[in-house]
């Protein structure tokens, strides 16, 4: 009983986001009137899964009370790389997939090295590397274009056995293969510990450097997974700096809606998935409710503001003012 209570307490942010998404999705399906068709589910899944992956990526650094402002740029850079090398015979597509993921990993490792060994503030380090990754993406693809092996792309953007959207299966795989082992490992636990109290984590004997480095490496890897999927959906690469920026900022919002604290140490990547889907579902809802296009951005903004505020509001939980004024340093 105590265990269940603890589990709920620990995951109430993620559960809230899940509940919010299910409610929004239900309203959307009912209002849309075409029923729960697999095509509709796939469309919603494909739209949400990209931000979900970038938001998962963002979760790792935020858990260590850091931040990665370059996830959007890595997403765009890997998209551009994938638009070049994901063609030809199957073995080349397979090798290309691995190369795309590896390039994301390298980007993440550079971020991590700058933060851990360069001792730069994460915001600044990733702000700068983000500009570099964007520049690289522009070098690779000065104009949008490229091609992707069509069967491979079709397989990733439709359904498995005609019943389950492939992107959701990939998302589940990422959770099971990357997130769950990470969460259970000492390195993952170390990330939570750093986020709660870096000095305490250090004193406990946790390898602060290894955990922090791993957080940025995983962020790069997951952002690259998102970039890979984006390529299979758009069948091209586009080095647009604005779309990278929007993904970075939306990923922070999704992480917060998903119940992860920006202070670090609380939350998890699964909540971020729900947070991302909530953010994506807003535009669907505005569409089915026939909101005027010119008013839509305003309502979207209000909902974003409301959602992140609800996710982050701390006055409701504090016992006194000192609690949220931070520890003296």
């Amino acid at each position, binding site marked *: 009983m105590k265990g269940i209570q603890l589990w709920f307490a620990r995951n109430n942010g993620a559960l809230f986001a899940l509940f919010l998404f299910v409610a929004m999705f239900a309203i959307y399906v009912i209002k849309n009137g075409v029923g729960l068709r697999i095509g509709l589910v796939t469309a919603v899944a494909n739209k949400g899964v990209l931000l979900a992956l970038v938001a998962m990526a963002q979760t790792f650094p935020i858990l260590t009370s850091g931040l990665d402002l370059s996830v959007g740029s890595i997403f765009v850079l890997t998209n551009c790389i994938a638009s070049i090398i994901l063609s030809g015979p199957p073995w080349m597509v397979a090798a290309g997939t691995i190369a795309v993921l590896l390039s994301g990993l390298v980007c993440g490792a550079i971020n991590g090295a*700058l933060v851990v060994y*360069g*001792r*730069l*503030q994460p*915001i*600044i*380090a990733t*702000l*700068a*590397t*983000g*500009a*570099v*990754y*964007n*520049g*690289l*993406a*522009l*070098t690779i693809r*000065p104009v949008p274009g490229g091609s992707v092996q069509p069967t491979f792309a079709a397989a990733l953007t439709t359904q498995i056995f005609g019943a389950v959207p492939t992107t959701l299966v990939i998302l589940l795989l990422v959770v099971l293969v990357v997130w769950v082992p990470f969460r259970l490992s000492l390195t993952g636990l170390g990330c939570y510990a750093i986020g709660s109290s*870096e*000095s305490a984590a*250090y004193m406990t004997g946790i390898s*602060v450097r290894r955990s922090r480095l791993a957080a940025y490496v995983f962020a790069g890897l997951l952002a690259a997974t998102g970039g890979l999927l984006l390529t299979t959906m758009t069948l091209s690469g586009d*080095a647009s700096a604005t779309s990278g*920026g929007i993904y970075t*900022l939306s990923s*922070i*919002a999704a992480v*917060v809606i998903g119940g992860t604290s*920006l*202070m670090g140490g609380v939350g998890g990547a699964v909540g971020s998935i729900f947070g991302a889907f909530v953010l994506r579902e807003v535009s669907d809802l505005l569409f089915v409710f026939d909101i005027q296009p*010119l*008013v*839509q*951005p*305003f*309502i*979207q*903004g*209000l909902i*974003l*503001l*409301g959602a*992140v*505020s609800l*996710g*982050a*509001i*701390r*006055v409701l939980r*504090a016992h006194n003012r*000192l609690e949220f*004024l*931070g*520890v*003296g*340093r």
Partner: protein
Amino acid sequence: MTRALGLLDRPVVIAFGFIAILLILGGIYNKQFLSGFYLLQQLRVASFLGIIASGAMVVILLGHIDLSIPWVVTLGGLAATAVAGWLGPSWTALGVPIAVASGALVGLANGLGVAFLRIPSMVFTLGMNAVVQGMVIMYTGGNAPPDQATPILQWLAVRETFYVPHAVVVWALVGVLVIVALKRTPFGRYVYAAGNSERVTYLSGISTRIILIVAFVTSGTCSAFAGAMLAGYAGKAYQAMGDPYLLPAIAAVVLGGTSILGGRGNYLGTVAGVILITVLDSILSVMQISDAARQITYGAMIVVMMLVYGRDRRSEG
């Protein structure tokens, strides 16, 4: 003398050193880079970023961040030009005050959210940015209000007196105001104190809420004012005109030695950071380096400079 030395701490000296090196390298490529005319032009271009960075710096000194800058800049630009259409041509003089007031209002909302609701500034200002964007699109998307720069805006942003661009004078005035506020008033002391430890500052009997609100109002005011000036400089206001200014503003503040964690930094550093970024951008574009290579150089430059002097002194443990 000691006070002057206090202003010129290490990051400031290094940042100005980098500017000198850049200009000398540029001068080797083309003598024009060292002419007084070119330098004044650079200062004029820098003044818009400089005004935005002034507000951003006050917020960063508190250990917070203002991500609503892009659309507050746009709001300021559009408000300053649209006044003529809404109130009639005889009211164009009200453009700048109305723009500044609208920016101050957004800043007030930011400040209230951060100080009273205790929502992290990073997400609250991010949300406010989306809300302001929505409001701007709602009011200007369908009916296309006047977006041409009024004579007053052009006078402020483009004209010059005795070769001195008015924009530079405006930036200097804003700068003096910020320096006086930070160095000579209790408010400035409290900003540094709260940036170091809001908890201790609060326990010392200072209302840190007011400090936070004033800081965010300052940032909103500066952004909207810079937006109005940018509209004058570009000849018109347009959607998303503030988008390219958020990251350079933050980078300029940090390159100038202000700690992103708050509590440490001075305004001369921000001036150096702003000029550094503007000159770097200008030299790279004159040398006709592609946009891609410019971004890479820009990012690499920030990394190198931060590795030289921006390293976090508090190591693990």
